[in-house]
């Protein structure tokens, strides 16, 4: 089974009605962010803090657009405030496209703490998640985005190591 490419992820996002992305890069996300930036189907905004991406997508939701917040695991770990204060309080689902830095096989030692605790944060905040490791998994992306809207809370779409090209 082949690893998905960035264009595959963009296609899957677009098929779910996503037309906006707010991102802050991680090394493993450069391929996807570059693809989102150059793809006319998306409005792409760069943020300086991952919580801004959550707030931006929540505002876009209230205006009728579907946005995704794109960030690394470290960024996700800084988003508890925005998720609880905006997504939980107002019941607004924001899909998060991210990676799982620090998991088995990631040799960047400064990321391992993310992998130790990210799962617990997902569970504590009630954030459903799925890993998109192969092209066979791509169908989960539109399903997760629809689920985020229905559930009215974030979902995590986790891309493979070392990202998509």
């Amino acid at each position: 089974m082949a690893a998905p490419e960035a264009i595959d992820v963009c296609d899957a996002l677009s098929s779910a009605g996503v037309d906006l992305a707010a991102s802050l890069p991680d090394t493993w996300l450069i391929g996807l962010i570059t693809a989102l930036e150059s793809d006319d189907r998306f409005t792409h905004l760069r943020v300086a803090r991952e919580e801004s991406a959550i707030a931006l997508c929540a505002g876009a939701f209230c205006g009728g657009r579907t946005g995704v917040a794109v960030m690394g695991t470290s960024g996700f770990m800084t988003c508890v405030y925005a998720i609880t204060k905006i997504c939980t309080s107002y019941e607004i689902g924001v899909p998060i496209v991210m990676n799982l830095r620090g998991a088995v096989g990631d040799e960047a030692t400064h990321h391992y703490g993310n992998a130790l605790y990210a799962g617990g944060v997902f569970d504590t905040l009630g954030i459903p998640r799925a890993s998109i490791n192969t092209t066979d998994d791509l169908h989960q992306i539109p399903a997760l985005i629809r689920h985020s809207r229905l559930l009215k809370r974030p979902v995590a779409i986790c891309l493979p190591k070392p990202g998509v090209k």
Partner: protein
Amino acid sequence: MSERNAMPLAECYRQLVELRRDELVVTSAGTASGEWYARSIDLDASFYLQASMGMASMFGLGLAISVPEARVWVFDGDGALVMNPGALLTEAEAAPPNLIHFVLANRAYGATGGLPYVNAARVEFQGLARACGIDRVYAFDDMADLRAEIGKIFAERRYTYIVLELTAEHGLHSEIPLDSVEQKFRFVRHVERAFGRTVFNRWGY
């Protein structure tokens, strides 16, 4: 803080309520929200983003980009802005012409007892915005000047950042008589009606 010119928040809001037409409003936490509700009594076209400090302008940016025919006002506390000054970089780059970001600069955490935030007496919000690449920056510390100029500023449709230097006051309103989920539904239903958007699907979510 040493002597400085400043305006009462309620007076500023009264002036803006008078000039408001169909703008969508997003307010930051605490008195920015409570006083706006007390002056506007608006439970439909204003989104009170309570207790999400540093997030209001990003929420407003997402809204402005999504409803380009709307005019969006964001009322951001200065204590909130200093929690996320990097938001100004995103605003400067996106610069949607239908967004106005007001900074309510009372130089304190007004809703939580009025203590000053770090270096509150010296931070210069116009310079902060300009350093982040925002071109259209205004500041007011006098009601007469605000009354004289604000209409002209609104007449031009460009992304704008306005600092309102405010007096430090106690006893301001901070309450909104709606649960946050009801706020969301009322606001979004208003957007749907006023701007012809379909936000919620046929099942209501």
